[in-house]
């Protein structure tokens, strides 16, 4: 059984913005029924270049439906240029995370968005064409490179989890390895950057900053709050407030906070909930 977050299950059970926009300004279609998931995204853009409305239709598993629903919520109200900056990780984060084997669902959302915007801008599919790497799932070189860069992927298994490429007959494994080798330095630098040895003071500042800028706004959106109580070595002590306090999913929330801090500050951090 997959461990889906409550937010994934909510967007799966009650998907937002399902449907078709008949007079859409941009339509993006990705995936196919043979691949096991497919998404059609419709966007309506106002004269100022702002996405006024978005609707989707999805064939796929719970995380595919939830990722599509989250995507529409993320892009409505944003300008096209702002929307272009949304990464698959943003979609996954919006849902409180996805199992790694399901990250390709968030990538599918991102690809549909790019396709819809390209369609809106009048770019033809051909002008975007990039060589096909995985024939089983129709994944191009560009799509794989984008996923590798944005998610700092280092192994072929990860590429399959994120893009599906290489998950079928396996004949493209060498080409995927070649792409990984080509981007290896770039990814290594990106991975090394936030994990370089921090002084205690730097660590403290970075933890504080991550909580203030990233974690607190998300909790507040759900009516909760967080306070940093203390930092001892790698033990980050926080107290949860508002509806987060005593919430049965507080344990999940703490895990999510810990993962975020690990990603942003140091893999060694452990988060504990304490009374304030």
């Amino acid at each position, binding site marked *: 059984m997959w461990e889906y977050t409550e937010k994934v*299950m909510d967007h*799966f*059970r009650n*998907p937002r913005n*399902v449907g078709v926009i008949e007079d859409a300004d941009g339509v993006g*279609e990705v995936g196919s*029924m*043979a691949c*096991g*998931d*497919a*998404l*059609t995204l419709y966007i309506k853009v106002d004269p100022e270049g702002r996405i006024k409305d978005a609707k989707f*239709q*999805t*064939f*796929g*598993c*719970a995380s*595919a*439906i939830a990722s599509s629903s989250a995507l529409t919520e993320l892009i409505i109200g944003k300008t096209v240029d702002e929307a272009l900056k949304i990464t698959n990780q943003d979609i996954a984060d919006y849902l409180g995370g996805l199992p790694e*084997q*399901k990250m390709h669902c968030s990538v599918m959302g991102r690809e549909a968005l790019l396709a819809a915007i390209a369609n809106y801008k009048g770019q033809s599919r051909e002008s975007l064409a990039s060589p096909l790497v995985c024939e089983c*799932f129709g994944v191009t070189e560009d799509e794989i490179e984008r996923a590798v860069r944005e998610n700092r992927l280092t192994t072929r298994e990860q590429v*399959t989890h994120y893009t*599906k490429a290489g*998950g*079928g007959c396996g004949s493209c494994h060498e080409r995927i390895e070649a792409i990984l080798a080509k981007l290896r330095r770039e990814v290594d630098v990106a991975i090394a950057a936030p994990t370089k040895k921090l002084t205690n003071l730097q660590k403290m500042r970075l933890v504080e900053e991550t909580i203030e800028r990233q974690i607190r706004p998300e909790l507040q959106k759900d009516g909760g709050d967080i306070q940093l109580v203390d930092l001892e070595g790698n033990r980050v002590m926080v107290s949860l407030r508002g509806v987060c306090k005593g919430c049965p999913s507080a344990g999940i929330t703490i895990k999510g906070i810990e993962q975020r801090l690990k990603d942003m500050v140091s893999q060694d951090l452990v988060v504990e909930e304490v009374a304030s």
Partner: protein
Amino acid sequence: MKFVYMDNNATTRVDPLVMEEMLPFFTEAYGNPSSMHLMGAMAQKAVSEAREKVAELLNAHPDEIVFTGCGTESDNAAIRGILEAWPEKRHLVTTRVEHPAVWNQIPYLRQKGYQVTELRVDREGRLDLEHLRSSLSDDTALVSIMFANNETGVVFPLDEIAQIVKARGIPLHTDAVQAVGKIQIDLAKLPVDLLSMSGHKIHAPKGIGVLYIRRGTRIAPFMIGGHQEKGRRGGTENVPYIVGLGKAAELSLKELTREPLRLGVLRDKLEQGILERIPRVLVNGKGTRRLPNTLSCCFEYVEGESLLLLLSDLGICASSGSACTSGSLEPSHVLRAMGVPYTAAHGSIRFSLGRFNTEEEVDFVLENLPGIVERLRAISPFWKSRGEG
């Protein structure tokens, strides 16, 4: 939540009578069957009685029953034990639709230099017996063919298969994990040499299995240690679980004349009801002999995991051969081997009934399933354009 458990091919509820039988062997009669005292004798007697009950279910001799940890262990032990006993023979025959316990051994064996023939099945899941006949050679060490398929319930004609294989004097193994307790198996009449079964598919707990080894079969030991199980599988016997399996075998045998009929009626009602209420459904293996409890069907234009999770919201437990439920990206190898189109294979659902299912539960599924399928089809980009919605 009230559960409607229709996933009995995955595992079954431990029968309360089985549980009751097991309990004393944890805290009262907890001796080691090898010990020379009364406590040891009690355990030894219990293991012997359980062995007799399992033998009776299969119509075999008690000394042909070897207790193992699970069905997968039995399959591994059978295949590797035979190959090791016949080191000069380098060819194995099996099918494209085996359970992973056998199927995933194929790449491993090929790597070791074995030649492996995977027999074809047709659109209904029927085995190509001509392919079997033509694949056998003097180099064939073993034929391993499942009794009944875990996903579709399709039953292979083991009697015909045995005639073909035994005419060439080749050892024959069958993974009967899904068949035992659901259909009659008479090993006095059916000349297979090795048969795997599992406790938790017949209302015993998980963690106990059996490998039947016909008298006179040459096989290497598969767990080297003490003298237990005649030296074939060393290690102290799992007495409470063996006792549980014995009781489960006794209950299965008692029910074997009527229960399959009852399950068949329920399954047919479920199948008919689905076909009447929901358009664009394919039943896998419909045209051939199937286990009476199993219904595998594909709902076109929807994806299996989504269906399972919405069913689960109502307490209905089933399973799927879709890619998304397994963590792989390809749908079930069984459905692909049958040539089920990918577009349908992703929407496959398996309902497998068992001892505790009732007609009311079948009605409950029939009331709720059409709405769930409709809901998912409504958000699918393919339904309006290609379906008849």
